[in-house]
């Protein structure tokens, strides 16, 4: 079974430039999450989708961050414009509603460097 796929794996941009990350969840998983992980820290939730609906975006900095999940499958996270402090790893995860263990499956992440 294929895992969560993310691209690109690495991205280096100049500050004030836009950037986008893409995520393809595990087939059949209706819940999708975007997390931000700073160096030496645990992941922090940015946004959670149930199918196409963003049910928790309270931690998403909406002045520069946006996300979408068209057709309830793939998702894109965008930053415009990027700031130096946005340098981090952006993780996508998915889960199956009603699963016994409630586990979330994580992708490998996109490492963003803002210069």
């Amino acid at each position, binding site marked *: 079974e294929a895992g969560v796929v993310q691209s690109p794996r690495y991205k280096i941009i100049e500050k004030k430039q836009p950037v986008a990350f893409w995520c393809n969840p595990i087939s059949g998983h209706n819940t999708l999450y975007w997390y931000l992980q700073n160096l030496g820290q*645990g*992941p922090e939730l940015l946004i959670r989708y149930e199918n196409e609906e963003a049910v928790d975006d309270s931690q998403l900095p909406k002045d520069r961050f946006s996300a979408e999940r068209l057709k309830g499958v793939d998702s894109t996270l965008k930053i415009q414009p990027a700031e130096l402090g946005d340098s981090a790893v952006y993780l996508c*995860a998915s889960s199956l509603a009603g699963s016994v263990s*409630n586990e*979330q499956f994580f*992708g*490998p992440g996109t490492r963003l460097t803002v210069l």
Partner: protein
Amino acid sequence: EDQVTQSPEALRLQEGESSSLNCSYTVSGLRGLFWYRQDPGKGPEFLFTLYSAGEEKEKERLKATLTKKESFLHITAPKPEDSATYLCAVQAWGNTGKLIFGQGTTLQVKP
């Protein structure tokens, strides 16, 4: 406010030297406590979910236990391949889906 604190931040062990990692938590109604393993350059990999105080789960050299205030990840006779960062996270009732992570414990096992 829901919170997770892990200790120690880093741990160095000799191969075969057993030890424990600690995860202290405060949460408004625990739905589940999760342990993940994260290797450098990879996403977290699920290990265990614990739901109630007194529960224990095992996988190879790892055993996770849960009390009302903390969880322990016991590593018995570790091997170099157990070297990784171990993350603890909690999920609260009423906020299902959201995981609140600790900062992790980085384990290095030397041969």
